């Protein structure tokens, strides 16, 4: 049974051909099968080289290197993502304005049978819908973003119902992940505006469908702790610990990650009880188990400061930046370190400038250097 094989660039839904798990006829053997030079895009994104991605998109468009409609969409998506990462929200918005409505026929496979014989459905990357919803808030139109995100959630739920009724299990799984992602994203908007009640109501929905998710339970605990409900957060952390002792890691966390999560949660409880010594002890256990646990490192430094040991707290953060820069370099750690510098040194601008220069050499394109407050 011979199968027509086109250069790995065309997608075919010939079931007979694809159900045979033959690596030679697999349409999805590499990332580049999905899109022109997709692996390069991925690589650049992983390194945080967003400016290079912008260049790459410009080049691909100028030299007409993209041949399929779906490739244009994917490149546009990376372009918008890069612009957003670089905080060029106006340009990102303009780029999105060049699109037609997402549900238009133009973005359906069946409209282009010459490229996609026997394939139907939407070719719009889901990420594009999400970014389109996120942009207005970054331009100061928060309400617009919330409306778009809630509409997108409705869209996802409609799809979910449709796929569930057709028993398409792989699909259902994917759309469920998207639903969880959206609910989490919407919650982050409510959280950053301290709309805790709405946030908790939303996350409760998520918890109802996934009650044994230790990461979700822990994050809910952080929210409860943030708003002051210490008893509530304790109950959630206890549940996470129970899940660990029951030996229920699921696919989410490996053993080290799970143990560290439980230790970090314990440390937080000590912290809010002002037992900073015990909190430091818990964090040290985490760091011993996983030296790249930056949350533990950061929080340990803060505990040291509350123990009046400003010098050591500075050392902990500086040490992490030196040892594991690609993991430790984030805006939060830099903000904390700079606050400590401002307290420790009368003439703190010198030391902050040293830090800032180092960051400029090492940091990814999207790093927001305003966090040094120079």
């Amino acid at each position, binding site marked *: 049974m011979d199968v027509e094989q086109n250069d790995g660039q065309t997608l075919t*839904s010939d079931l007979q051909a*694809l159900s045979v798990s033959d690596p030679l006829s*697999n*349409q*999805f053997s*590499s990332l580049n099968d*999905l899109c022109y030079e997709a692996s390069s895009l991925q690589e650049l994104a*992983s*390194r945080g080289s967003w400016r290079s991605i912008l260049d790459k998109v410009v080049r691909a468009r100028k030299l007409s290197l993209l041949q399929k409609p779906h490739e244009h*969409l994917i490149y546009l998506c990376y372009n918008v993502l890069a612009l957003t990462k670089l905080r060029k929200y106006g340009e990102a918005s303009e780029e999105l304005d060049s699109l037609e409505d997402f549900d238009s026929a133009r973005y359906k496979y069946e409209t282009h049978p010459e490229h996609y014989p026997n394939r139907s459905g939407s*070719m719009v*990357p889901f990420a594009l819908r*999400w970014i389109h919803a*996120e942009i207005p808030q970054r331009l100061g139109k928060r309400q617009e973003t919330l409306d778009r995100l809630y509409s997108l959630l409705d869209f996802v739920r409609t799809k979910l119902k449709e796929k569930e009724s057709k028993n*398409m299990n792989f699909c259902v799984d994917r759309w469920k992940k998207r639903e969880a992602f959206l609910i989490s*994203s919407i919650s*982050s908007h409510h*959280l*950053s505006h301290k709309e*805790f*009640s709405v946030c908790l109501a939303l996350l*409760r929905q998520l*918890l*109802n469908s996934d009650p044994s998710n230790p*990461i*979700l*339970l822990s994050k809910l605990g*952080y929210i*409860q*702790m*943030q*708003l*002051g*409900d*210490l008893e509530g957060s304790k*109950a*959630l952390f206890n549940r996470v610990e129970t899940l660990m002792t029951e030996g229920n890691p699921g696919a989410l966390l490996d053993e080290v*990650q799970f143990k560290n999560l439980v230790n*970090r949660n314990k440390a937080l409880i000590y*912290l*809010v009880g002002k037992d900073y010594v015990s909190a430091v002890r818990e964090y040290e256990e985490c760091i011993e188990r996983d030296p*790249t646990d*930056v949350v533990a490192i*950061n*929080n340990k430094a*803060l505990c040291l*400061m509350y123990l*009046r040991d*400003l*010098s050591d707290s500075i050392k902990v953060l500086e040490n992490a930046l030196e040892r594991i820069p690609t993991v430790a370099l984030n805006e*939060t750690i830099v903000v*904390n370190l700079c*606050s400590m510098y*401002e*307290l*420790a*040194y*009368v*003439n703190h601008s010198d030391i902050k400038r040293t830090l800032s220069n180092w960051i400029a050499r090492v940091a990814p394109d*999207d790093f927001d250097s305003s966090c040094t407050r120079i």
Partner: protein
Amino acid sequence: MSATAGSHSLAFRVMRLCRPSFHVENPLQLDPLDLLTGEDIFDDPSAASHLPRLFSRSKASTNKSGEADLTYRNRFELQNPTDAMGIPGFLVLPQSFGAIYLGETFCSYISINNSSNFEVKDVMIKAEIQTERQRILLLDTSKSPVESIRSGGRYDFIVEHDVKELGAHTLVCTALYNDNDGERKYLPQFFKFIVANPLSVRTKVRTVKDNTFLEACIENHTKSNLYMDQVDFEPAQNWSTTILKADEHYSEINCQTREIFKPPILIRSGGGIYNYLYQLRMSSHGSEQVKVEGSNILGKFQITWRANLGEPGRLQTQHILGSPISHKEIELQLVEVPSKTISGMPFLIHLKLINQTDKEMGPFEVWMSGGNSHEKSITVNGLQKLVLPKVEASGSTDFNLNLIATRLGVQKITGITVFDVRDKKTYDPLPDLEGLWGYYPGDPLENRFLLVAGRNAPCSDNASSTLFASGSFIDHKIRWDLTCRTIPALWQFTAFISYVVNLGHRVVLDFGLHFPTVRRAQSSCSGNT
């Protein structure tokens, strides 16, 4: 000792050390699958089986914690859908002084730095809080001064102070030291802050027969949401108290996560309110209540709230007073009233007049006052004035009033006036004898409220009546019907409302209660003049 303004070797650096906060962001992290494929790609079973492997392969090679991941992958790739919540667990130091309120604890990191090139010796450090009324010492090293602080060195300390006064406060840090020239120098530094009032508590006391109800409304004047950890009403000696709450919605009761996830009581910043309702009873039992002249103290509130990461604050209210018990010479009690009357048909109410003095009173004349009969909904049927005989000291007399209602609905029997013929004294129309009111404990923006109604008289039978309640929400009128059975003196009923609001918009809700209409059984109307 010179207090020179310039050229000090030492300087104070101060940072308010309230609790840290969780870092919250709106992350730009995605699942690469959602970037590089069309959203409907998984409709294709072949894609469904091959793609996940393709992406996990590209992830696995760099994701082990043992190997150094030299990329900034984590700033771009979503590890789990819930990472989009943007609360990774990092804590952040307070970035500004912020606002400080009565009842909180002021905590500060104080560091004294030697930024000169020389050592300083014998440093005596003092930290105090200065308010309008007093000066409070927080730290004093005069008894054991710091021997030396080297060039570039620091001496750190953390101070705490429970804020108990409003208004301007100054943290005064002073250092007395010997500088390199052997000169004794004095360095004062001042850090000012203002303490504001975080909450206001408004109370209302209602009395329905033996029951006293205390409504308390707590308003949050701070800039952050306050979690109400404890709001306790501590009753005075001769009172006992129970808190009344609206029931939980059935959807919350059946919720799987109920045990680990109770919605917190959170009062929104800048003017949010929350209501509490308590029922109070006199502890002393028996029909004879000790009536003490003057005001009566019901008790006071102890409130503990928490702000970010559980930062506590505590306040106590002043004494809450009940309605003053004045000694009345005569008391009118409503003994019995029919629960349902038919408009246009006469009905009897049974009253008791009690002489609370130590001498004989009367005879009395009783009538209903207040406007002409066209305005009133209940009038006396028959003789407008009723004559009652004398009543001996501490005695009482029973009598009936024959009334007729001209209007539908729950009507108040008002304006019963008692006139002492001998002493020529009119006793003011005695208080309304029907009490019905609605109340919404909790957050007025929650979707449930509690109706509490009290009648001053027991009902003669358990006929049911229908209560209509309506509210308005911005410009829309919502009406919801509740049915309840009458209960002798007091009933409470939890009603749930639902409404749809665009998120992020402010909502104002306005409640009202309307009283039931008694169905007209007959239209015939007979009356005696």
